[in-house]
């Protein structure tokens, strides 16, 4: 509760600034229209017009919310191609597009995280891998690997792999490296004293791993999972850009920018934000439960 009020105030201020920005951003178009129609715009008329344009340069928050509502519930419930009328998700609804992106994100995230944990285990237990692979894993975080995305999509298309898999691959390698680096750090988190203690019990390598290293790595794992899922989502969205994909949030962004449909862009953006927040939130809940059970919660 101590933070709820300040956070809500900050959000309110941001919304207020957003509304305030709508007026100057959209005023030009409103004046042009008025001039064309030969009418004089009063100040109030100007403000109401800037908050209710068809293709505003900056849509007002309520317009984005309405667009979100129309392209989710209204489209599925009443739309000709909606869930209620056809039994399948409408290809005009953001639920459909969001799911296309989300499924690729989740698949890629699962692959990337699994492989990342495996590699981290290898690096921690094998000095040769630590010396030779680890520097590359760290360096890979400093380079814009996202730039590889269009090429991977096109090349995989050329060899006949299309749809979900190429996007998932990009998501996978974007979430892979944060997990590797975080997990290596986590598996090395136990202090020398704790490791020595297990040594005095003559614990085996496996026992040390499962009773000390793995539990100790959990906070690091969850931290990198949050980074990883955010990266995976960005990967999936960017992966939808280059081939002119017809489905997915990235496709909605691209189509919106081609046809100047700002409301479509903004609603896709907000949908992406909701998905990202939801995924990070879910991982946060899992983190709280896991760490709570292990007695590591703060």
């Amino acid at each position: 509760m101590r933070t709820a009020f300040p956070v809500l105030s900050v959000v309110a201020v941001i919304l207020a600034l957003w509304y305030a920005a709508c007026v100057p951003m959209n005023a030009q178009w409103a004046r042009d229209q008025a001039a064309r129609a030969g009418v004089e715009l009063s100040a109030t008329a100007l403000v109401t017009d800037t908050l209710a344009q068809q293709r505003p340069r900056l849509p007002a928050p309520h317009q984005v919310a309405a667009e979100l509502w129309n392209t989710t519930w209204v489209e599925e419930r009443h739309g000709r191609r909606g869930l209620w009328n056809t039994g399948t998700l409408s290809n005009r609804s953001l639920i459909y597009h969001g799911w296309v992106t989300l499924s690729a994100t989740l698949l890629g995230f699962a692959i990337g995280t699994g492989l990342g944990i495996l590699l981290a285990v290898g690096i921690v237990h094998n000095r040769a891998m630590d010396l030779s692979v680890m520097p590359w894993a760290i360096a890979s975080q400093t380079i814009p690997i996202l730039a590889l995305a269009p090429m991977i999509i096109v090349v995989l298309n050329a060899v006949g792999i299309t749809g979900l898999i190429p996007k998932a691959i990009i998501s996978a390698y974007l979430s892979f490296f944060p997990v590797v680096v975080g997990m290596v750090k986590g598996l090395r988190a136990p202090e020398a004293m704790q490791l020595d203690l297990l040594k005095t019990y003559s614990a085996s390598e496996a026992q040390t791993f499962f009773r000390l290293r793995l539990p100790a790595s959990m906070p690091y794992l969850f931290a990198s999972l949050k980074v990883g899922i955010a990266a995976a989502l960005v990967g999936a969205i960017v992966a939808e850009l280059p081939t002119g994909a017809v489905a997915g949030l990235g496709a909605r962004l691209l189509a919106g920018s081609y046809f100047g449909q700002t409301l479509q862009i903004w609603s896709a953006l907000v949908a992406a934000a909701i998905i990202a927040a939801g995924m990070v939130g879910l991982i946060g809940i899992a983190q709280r439960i896991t760490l709570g059970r292990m007695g590591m919660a703060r």
Partner: protein
Amino acid sequence: MSAPQVSASGTDRRQAGPGKVGAPAAILGGAVPASGGAQFWGMAAALLAAAALWLAADPAAAPALSALAWLLVAAVAAHMARAGRLALAPALLVVPLGLVVAAWTLAREAAAPAAPSFWLAVAAVWLGAWMTVVWLSELRPRHRGARRLLGLLAPILFGATLLWLWEAVVLGAGVPRVILPPPSVIAARIAASAPILWIDFVQTFVKGALSGFAIGCGAAILFAVLVDRSQFLKRGLLPVGNFVAALPIIGTAPIMVMWFGFDWPSKAAVVVAMVFFPMLVNTVQGLQASEPMQRDLMRTWSAGYWQTLWHLRLPAALPFIFNGLKICSTLALIGAIVAEFFGSPTRGMGFRISTEVGRLQLDMVWAEITVAAIAGSAFYGFWALLERQMTFWHPSQRGR
């Protein structure tokens, strides 16, 4: 670790079972942990088989065979050195030399669709390289410089082997260039297209990423200093900032292109949007990092707000600020490149990547990616170096 978990390790030791961890490590590394023996025998067997197949199929394959003979001699020398019958240092020179000669010959040999003997030889070189890395990793040099050299040598050897493997596999398997060009072709493309790459670099990195990075990070630091005076704002902004930092801000690119046009200002705007919140969150946290005792001390000297900020809180915040700068340095380049996918003038790294992908000129795409990788890690490295200079006193920097 809590006490019950530790005491439990005695009771159900049998259930855990040994080697559960060793197994994945062994598969990943292709190695029996802490020994080059397995690689050696694997390499020797692969070499002998390759030589036999080669002799049977094509007696005229003299260059390849001589290279293999080199490698075999090197391997035996290395093995003897390990057994203590030869000095280690010369063996460590001979083995990489043998590897290089064999690798070079094999890569030239690979023009034709390759025979099984070729793949066996490739496998042998891979095993040999890995064996060398294992040996290197077993060295524990006492001298600091030698340790640093080792820390460079192992990843370089690993990277070079990967590059060579890429070259050999692409050539040997006859992978079409429109799918994966070999490194040699990419290198040739970089050399041939240097002027274009430079123009793209200036457009995307210098104009787009750098200016956006400077504006975004600068504004975030200033804003953080202002926000820092209000407990209320800090409490409200930190969660919001953390939330926004996890969002796919890169999606604002089409909006920015609409607002700021096709040229670099729209890219810089995307970068500003991407770096602002991570930088803000880091700086605000950093400004809280000074200890209460040190702030009390400042108070007993009746130091003013700005004196406390300048002498205590900003220095204490530096590790956080640098962390933010390092994160943002990678975000900036990503933002500038991806924003160009939504429209740009006919130059820029993102523009080049998307158009050359469309024309299936993948060597040019890889050339741009190489430049982006170098620029990205150099930019990051710049901040890491500056960090080491300026936060030499921080425990995380002292150990080095």
